């Protein structure tokens, strides 16, 4: 895709929610040893994550964020005409779409269009693009984009590349038709040749490689890692190489299409892959690090919700009080990527919400 300029869509508010269980990475010392944990933590910039336990789902985190956001915006649920739910960790394995359940839980009207989008690192930008397109192209007046993942549950605890990386979070972003607002500019792309570098190799019976009685067995993999075919796998070197190849031109395309100079951007909010990667990208693009907010230290890599979580935790005061020019960029699993140049604020942004297990949906 080239770039898209979508006029007349206002970002009215952004909220995020995380599980209330806070886990320092040092807890993994027993598995990897103190020296290795420290080495990994220095590299990733992650000291702590908020972690879920099975039963508290992505949708529960997004639900909490959406509830609070609607309240603070004083938007009636009845007024929501579209719901986009971005996740790779749905309530049910595809059937039914979690967005349908969220329509019910949030009390959105039956006239609401709702659907799931199964993207990860790039998912938030895709969600914004879809939400904005629904407003500009289909005439909807209010859309909720919910993005969340509980990726911490996907990896083997004995995989040092991943088990200290992911945190869990959900987010809600409220979009509204407003003809007075300048365009949101998007650049999106895909390179499926990277499909095997971030993958859960086996799944249910309809999958490419169905699970069988042996696929759950964790075996010795590279280094001292242990992983099964049902665990998430990442080739970190390949993903890094992809990122430095694709992200700088992606950011440039979005800036050029928006007619912004790099200096005119207030903040570059990147998908929180890991600190080493983001620092390298910033250097390569000559973006000053003080314009690159990080939420990694406290929350880890939160997949599809890392961009809104970074905005609500690192830029909340600013964006609540004045307009900011943001360059958002998500990139990774797929490979899939997207950037968005958007002017937004002042907008409604409540403090990050802590969600207790007892708040999980009971069905």
């Amino acid at each position, binding site marked *: 895709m080239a770039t898209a300029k979508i006029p007349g869509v206002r970002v009215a508010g952004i909220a995020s929610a995380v599980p209330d269980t806070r886990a320092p990475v040092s807890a993994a010392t027993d598995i990897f040893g103190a020296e290795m944990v420290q080495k990994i933590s220095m590299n990733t910039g992650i000291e702590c994550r908020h972690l879920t336990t099975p039963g508290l789902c992505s949708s529960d985190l997004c639900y909490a964020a959406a509830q609070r956001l609607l309240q603070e915006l004083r938007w009636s649920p009845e007024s929501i005409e579209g719901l986009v739910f971005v996740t790779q960790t749905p309530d049910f394995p595809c059937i039914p779409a979690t967005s349908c359940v969220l329509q019910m839980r949030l009390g959105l009207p039956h006239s609401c269009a709702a659907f799931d989008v199964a993207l990860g690192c790039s998912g938030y930008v895709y969600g914004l693009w879809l939400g904005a397109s629904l407003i500009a192209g289909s005439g909807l007046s209010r859309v909720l984009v919910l993005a969340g993942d509980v990726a911490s549950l996907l990896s083997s605890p004995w995989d040092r590349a991943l088990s200290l990386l992911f945190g869990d979070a959900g987010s809600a972003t409220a979009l509204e038709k407003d003809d007075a607002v300048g365009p949101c500019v998007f650049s999106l792309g895909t390179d499926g040749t990277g499909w095997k570098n971030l993958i859960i190799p086996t799944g249910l019976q309809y999958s490419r490689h169905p699970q069988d009685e042996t696929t759950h067995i964790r075996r010795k993999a*590279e280094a001292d890692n242990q992983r099964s075919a049902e665990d998430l796998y990442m080739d*970190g070197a390949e993903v890094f190489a992809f990122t430095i*190849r694709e992200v700088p031109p992606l950011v440039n395309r979005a800036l050029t299409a928006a007619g912004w100079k790099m200096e005119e951007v207030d903040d570059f909010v990147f998908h929180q892959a890991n600190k080493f990667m983001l620092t390298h990208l910033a*250097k390569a693009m000559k973006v000053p690090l003080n314009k690159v907010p990080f939420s990694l230290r406290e929350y880890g890599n939160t997949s599809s919700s890392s961009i809104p979580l970074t905005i609500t935790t690192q830029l909340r005061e600013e964006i609540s009080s004045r307009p900011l020019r943001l360059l958002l960029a998500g990139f990774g699993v797929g490979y899939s990527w997207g950037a968005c140049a958007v002017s937004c604020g002042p907008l409604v942004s409540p403090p990050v919400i802590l969600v207790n297990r007892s708040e999980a949906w009971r069905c």
Partner: protein
Amino acid sequence: MNEQEFIARLEELLEADAGSLNLATPLGSLQGWDSLALVSFLAMADEKYGTRVAPADLRQCKSVADLMKLVEKK
């Protein structure tokens, strides 16, 4: 390419003692040559030498000399 500079950078990257590596050093003998080091090497090649190294090529390397050839190649 300046061989000494390359080796010094590699030593820094691997947190190895200065002067402990030479072109003949086998990568298999280095404790620090792990998955994090692969990524750090890709970053160094990009930042210091403007070379985009393919991870598959990097994994073929057996010695420090192989690494240098890889960075020099392009």
